[in-house]
């Protein structure tokens, strides 16, 4: 059978993002995520029609998904949205960083007649989880008390790291009925906030999730955590600072590991800051001043949809008044949607961002670059970009997972930060990471001020220790080192590498989530919580570390408490046991 060797890139996509709210067992999620985007020519070479099935094989596993023809050309590169399908073929090794390798993986693509496994099949066949009994729960409509609605303005959106705080949300009968100003991801989260909800606590008995009352679920959760020798407390990027603070206290009390999802997003950025420092600004500075904006390894039009209009390329600022006053550059391995709006697109060879950053550092210093091409880019183009950088009045590089997840990881960011630092000899330049979840920065902040470290904090010796290649959630799970887990506001079963998931589902897992995540389905104890930023307030930190208060818009479903409250109950219960 004719096969094709390609470079596989995984990442966020719009439908993957929206799918989080409507549920991962839905058809929409399956259709949007169990796919691989291929270049038209590659698709033709494979002899597969658009929508046909292909088998993706890597050193780490294989999976059958649907082939989609990409709207843009990126011959030799294939894209898969992150999710349970991609998790089966990504490289679980963290090489000391805590971060699995999620981009730039060598893959072989083959046409196939095999069936595309659904979510249930993946869970049952590959991970051995009994899911027949996913409890079906519907949030009752409640009595129509009145038809009067109220509009809440200046609502901060709790979806991505942009935390846009200008949303207008219309609420009627304790339901969000209309959302203005938000992007599709943000409004999807708010409008679908009642869907796919967990409405009762569950405890697994004889392999089956059984409905229990809150007190028993908390008790069981506390027993699991108090009896564990080395528990992992993971997640934390989709909840409030208030909840995270209790989480750290709990981890400290039981001598566990406190890790947040930056381990699979910008953990390498943090490691780079530890090496080199940083040079950054808040987004308002970019909006008001930046006349050169570089998006490197990130695709905000898909992952942070309002970023360009509100904070960067199209924003109306004091000195840079509009798009016309700014030059836009996109550096990526494929021509993304964001690349379409750029003045200059630089296509970098996968896994060579470090080389490109180094070449730029040389070019701005006027050093000779002997080779004609670096990282697949002509040296003339590199000089052109270097010239743009030096002659800008205020330049910014926004960088994303395209740098943190590929080969070199933190070293890529370190070089990029040094590039931005160097540029300050000539002009003003900053670099800002595009953080994903709405409060992943908050998780880093709390972790840092309470322990000194931003992620992968190990309390086993009674004080905080940090060693990302060892104490990260990924490494601990890959190696099967932990004997229990508390998962808050995250879905590792959907997004961690298969090897880590295999070990996670073997140990008792307590999950706090408002929705039926795949992790909740696979857990020992499931405790439903209110949605932060919709049903309970709290603080979250924007990608540029600006703290913003989230609002309570509607009442949570009856009997459902916040993450913070449930965590406090667990902590109190643990204190009785240990």
């Amino acid at each position, binding site marked *: 059978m004719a096969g094709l060797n390609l470079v596989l890139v995984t990442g966020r996509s719009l439908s993957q993002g929206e799918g989080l709210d409507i549920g991962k067992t839905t058809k929409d999620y399956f259709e949007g995520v169990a796919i691989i985007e291929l270049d038209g020519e590659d698709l033709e070479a494979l002899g597969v029609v658009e929508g046909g099935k292909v088998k993706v094989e890597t050193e780490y596993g294989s999976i059958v998904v649907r082939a989609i023809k990409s709207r843009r050309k990126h011959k030799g590169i294939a894209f898969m949205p992150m999710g349970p399908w991609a998790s089966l073929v990504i490289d679980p090794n963290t090489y000391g960083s805590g971060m699995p390798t999620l981009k730039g993986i060598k893959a072989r693509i083959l046409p196939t007649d095999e069936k595309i496994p659904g979510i249930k099949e993946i869970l049952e066949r590959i991970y051995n989880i009994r899911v027949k009994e996913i409890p079906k729960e519907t949030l009752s409509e409640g009595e129509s008390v009145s038809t009067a609605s109220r509009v809440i303005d200046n609502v901060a959106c709790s979806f991505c790291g942009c935390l846009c705080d200008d949303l207008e949300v219309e609420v009627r009968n304790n339901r969000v009925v209309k959302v203005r100003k938000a992007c599709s991801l943000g409004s999807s989260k708010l409008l679908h906030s009642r869907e796919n909800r967990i409405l009762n606590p569950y405890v697994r008995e004889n392999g089956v999730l059984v409905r229990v009352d809150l007190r028993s679920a908390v008790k069981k959760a506390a027993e699991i955590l108090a009896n564990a020798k080395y528990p992992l407390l993971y997640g934390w990027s989709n909840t409030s600072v208030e909840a995270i603070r209790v989480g750290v206290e709990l981890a400290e009390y039981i001598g566990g590991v406190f890790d947040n999802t930056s381990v699979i997003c910008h953990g390498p950025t943090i490691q780079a800051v530890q090496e080199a420092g940083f040079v950054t600004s808040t987004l308002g500075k970019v909006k008001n001043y930046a006349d050169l904006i570089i998006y490197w390894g990130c695709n905000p039009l898909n992952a942070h949809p309002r970023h360009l209009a509100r904070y960067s390329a199209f924003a109306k600022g004091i000195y840079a008044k509009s798009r016309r006053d700014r030059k836009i550059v996109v550096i990526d391995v494929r021509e993304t949607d964001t690349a379409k709006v750029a003045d200059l697109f630089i296509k970098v060879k996968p896994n060579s961002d470090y080389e490109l950053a180094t070449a730029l550092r040389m070019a701005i210093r006027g050093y000779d670059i002997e080779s004609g091409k670096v990282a697949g880019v002509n040296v003339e183009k590199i000089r052109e970009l270097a010239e743009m950088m030096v002659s800008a*009045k205020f330049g910014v590089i926004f960088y994303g997972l395209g740098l943190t997840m590929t080969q070199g990881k933190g070293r890529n960011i370190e070089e990029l930060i040094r590039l931005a630092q160097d540029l300050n000899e000539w002009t003003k330049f900053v670099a800002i990471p595009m953080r994903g979840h709405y409060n992943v920065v908050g998780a880093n902040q709390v972790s840092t001020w309470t322990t000194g470290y931003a992620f992968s904090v190990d309390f086993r010796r009674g004080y905080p220790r940090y060693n990302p290649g060892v104490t990260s959630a990924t490494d601990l799970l890959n190696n099967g080192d932990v004997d229990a887990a508390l998962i808050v506001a995250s879905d590792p079963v959907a997004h961690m590498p298969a090897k880590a998931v295999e070990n996670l589902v073997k140990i008792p897992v307590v999950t706090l989530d408002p929705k039926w995540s795949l992790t909740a389905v696979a857990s020992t104890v499931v405790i439903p919580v209110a949605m932060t930023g919709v049903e309970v307030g709290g*603080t979250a930190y924007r990608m540029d570390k600006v703290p913003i208060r989230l609002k309570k818009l509607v009442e949570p479903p009856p009997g459902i408490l916040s993450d913070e409250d449930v965590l406090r109950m667990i902590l109190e219960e643990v204190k009785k046991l240990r």
Partner: protein
Amino acid sequence: MDLLIKNGFVYDPINGVNGEVLDIGVRGGKIVDPSEVDPREAKVIDARGKVVMPGGIDIHTHIAGPKVNTGRLMMPSDHYFSFMKFEKGVHRSGTGKYTPSTFLTGYRYARMGWTMAVEPATPPLKTLHTHEELDDTPMIDKLCFLLLDSNRILLDYLSQGDLDRFRTLIVWFLEATKSYAVKLVDPGVAISWSWGRGYGLDIDDEIEPYGITPRDIITSFCRVNQELKLPHTIHVHCNRLGIPGNYETTLKTMKSTSHLSVGGEVNIHITHAQYNSYSGESWFDLGSGSEEIAKYVNNHAHVSLDIGQIDFGTAITMTADAPFEYALFHLSRWKWGGAEVENEAASGIVPFKYRKRNFVNTIQWCIGLELTLLSKDLWRVILTTDHPNGAPFTRYPKIIALLMSKNYREEIFKKLSRRGLKKSILPSIDRELTLYDIAIITRAAPARLLGIDNFKGHLGVGADADVAIYDIDPEKIDLSRDYMKIKERFSRALYTIKGGEIVVKGGEIVKEVYGTTYAVKFREEIDKSLLKELEEKFREYYTISLSNYWIPEEGIRHLRYIYCG
């Protein structure tokens, strides 16, 4: 439970008590007349042969907020070797020597007998972050100073000459952010730094695009500060910090507000003055300018200062003086953190090492001590290290010992740069401070300068029961010769009492408490039309809305207002 502290040598400068043997009574978190406390019901502490002082107050210490946390983030090496273990039911864990985590910050202050600390530089937009960290800082009372010198909206009004709106907005910013006083850092520099300029900005240089000077900023803020009757004066980090010859700028800065002082009242505080007291024209002919600074302060009652003493070894410099940090990065060549906050401020972080044999560092070390020892009025000279810039606050006991003992200073001189010593006046100073003096510069004076000396910084009836007891017998220990004892005993308080509760015993934490966060509140209402205008400005300048900028009271653990006006 009531407390009765019996027979200690009490040093309470606000009440003029200088080492007299007295009893101190404590009830309901306050100091009461000892006769009111029934010794059979109360816990009695035998303080015979011990020193009793009010709890220490640190008027300038970077312990919480965005730049401190980034400092922690940048320095995993600092956190790897220095830690405190979690003790069930007693205290939390923590790490870090130079940028300790929040819990550890509180514990370390308490162990030294300090009960209050001021975070001196918070950018308004991120002050919610500062409060969240202060909320996680146990054992001490706290408050923060607000960075306002490069605030675009304020400077808009100032440059237009609209002093009414300028004044009202200062009120609004302080109230919105629940902070305590106005901080000016290298006044106006963050405006220039937006374009990468501003290094060496002097007090009479014009700031683009406003056409005003740092002098205008300083005097305008000073005037408003006085009108509003804020409890603390403007808190100024002078222009040209860390640049040879800058003592002249410092003199100009102090003089700039002298005509505004009413009846000789203090109206400007020069912070970490050591960094602003350099004579000479370059690093090669650097000299100490402390004599000139001290002379001005001695002759003019309208100025107070804190010294910003350095100690040798590692430090992490962090300040809202961004261009200076960038320059320092070129000296240290290790790590540089630079951050800017829209329309408000910029900052920098550079880890640094002060070396004993280094000419410049030797002079710096001398200047801080000189500024204190040359002072004729210690009520206006406060002990600080500008933690963690000059040294961590845990070096206070060492600096106290240096101030109290010429012998100790001479011991250290042996290891310093001789050329540096020649350019300093410290070797010629014989003065040794007394315990009473120390109680002034670490307790009474900071309380007075913060405007809270009616209930803090003293042991009179009605004061908050924040007390430190040290195992020092001034009748037995020769303070000048036994300087190591001074250092040791101040490092580990025998007892620290916070709000009437024993929180430290024998230098160890025995109970965790959380102090109060103080903020100013004004009686005047803010004009509604101005708020409308402000909303517009926010839409234009900021990336968050005006309503989300306001920090709600319930976001802060124990908030207490100090009313002004």
